[in-house]
């Protein structure tokens, strides 16, 4: 197992989720929990990916892990599980992939190629 990659991704996952949680107006007291859920999400996804599974399966298992872990958090008036699970799963949404895939499709169109489904798949 690549521990350096795991450490990098889980740290970045914590930062990503904390940052976006501020954008989503999550309370400051809840930010450490958001960070923990992001770190857990990317750590689990990395472990499953390194075990040789596909990205979709890894993301599913990671989201499931976040959901289960949040059930352990006691429900308080200031922190809701709903405010934690959605930001926690944000790093699992393939936004970068979607943007890059759309850019590749633009590039195909710009080249004026006769894009068959195989060509589009290859471009993505």
């Amino acid at each position: 197992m690549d521990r350096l990659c795991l450490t990098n991704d889980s740290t970045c996952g914590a930062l990503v989720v904390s940052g976006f949680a501020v954008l989503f107006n999550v309370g400051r007291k809840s930010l450490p929990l958001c960070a923990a859920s992001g770190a857990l999400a990317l750590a689990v996804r990395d472990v499953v990916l390194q075990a040789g599974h596909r990205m979709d399966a890894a993301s599913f298992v990671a989201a499931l892990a976040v959901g289960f872990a949040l059930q352990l958090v006691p429900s308080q008036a200031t922190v809701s599980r709903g405010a934690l699970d959605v930001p926690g799963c944000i790093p699992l949404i393939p936004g970068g992939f979607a943007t890059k895939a759309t850019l590749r499709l633009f590039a195909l169109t710009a080249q004026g190629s006769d894009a068959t489904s195989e060509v589009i798949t290859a471009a993505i």
Partner: protein
Amino acid sequence: MHWVFIAHPNHWQGAAEVTRLCKIGPLGVNQRLHHGLSLLVMKIEGGELTISESSQELDQLLHLSKRHPDWFVAIAVGIACTAFGRVLDVDWRSVVPIFLAAGIGQMVRQQLGLHAVNLFMSVTLVALLGSVLSGLGARLVGSQTVAKDMVATVLLLVPGVPAFKAQPDMLDGRPALGSARAVWVAVMVVATAVGVWLGLILLQEGR
């Protein structure tokens, strides 16, 4: 400006339903308000509050769930996009350009929203600005991953929450809402990609 329909059973007067139509400002994700409203709705459903008490609680809730300061949000978004970039394997040199470009992009997005600029136009403009700024910055510091840096900068525009919520909506028996969210997400991604694409052309960066 958006319109919202509010429909709820009128428990107090025993009538069927009250439906209201009112104007609201720009929509955004506000988890504190969402959580507070959920608790308030449960109280009202349980018959714990009168109409005037509900109204008071609602006013108090709006006061208590104010957004974080703009500068704090811009810094947080900058950190988030930079960290996302590291997950996408951008090099260490590009960390500062991505942070600055994403922070500036967030501030510009906020201003465009306040001036009621069309949302999709605003997203394209912010994606163009953010990607060009990060691309130029990344070139300046000698980054080897300029194209990736430009994509990482615009990840603040990816509508993660609606993308996440679209599927539960459909599974919960609200296919119209779920489909609307999914289509909205798709258009947002295309608007973002158009901005980055224009940025790549401007900087003549390999796609």
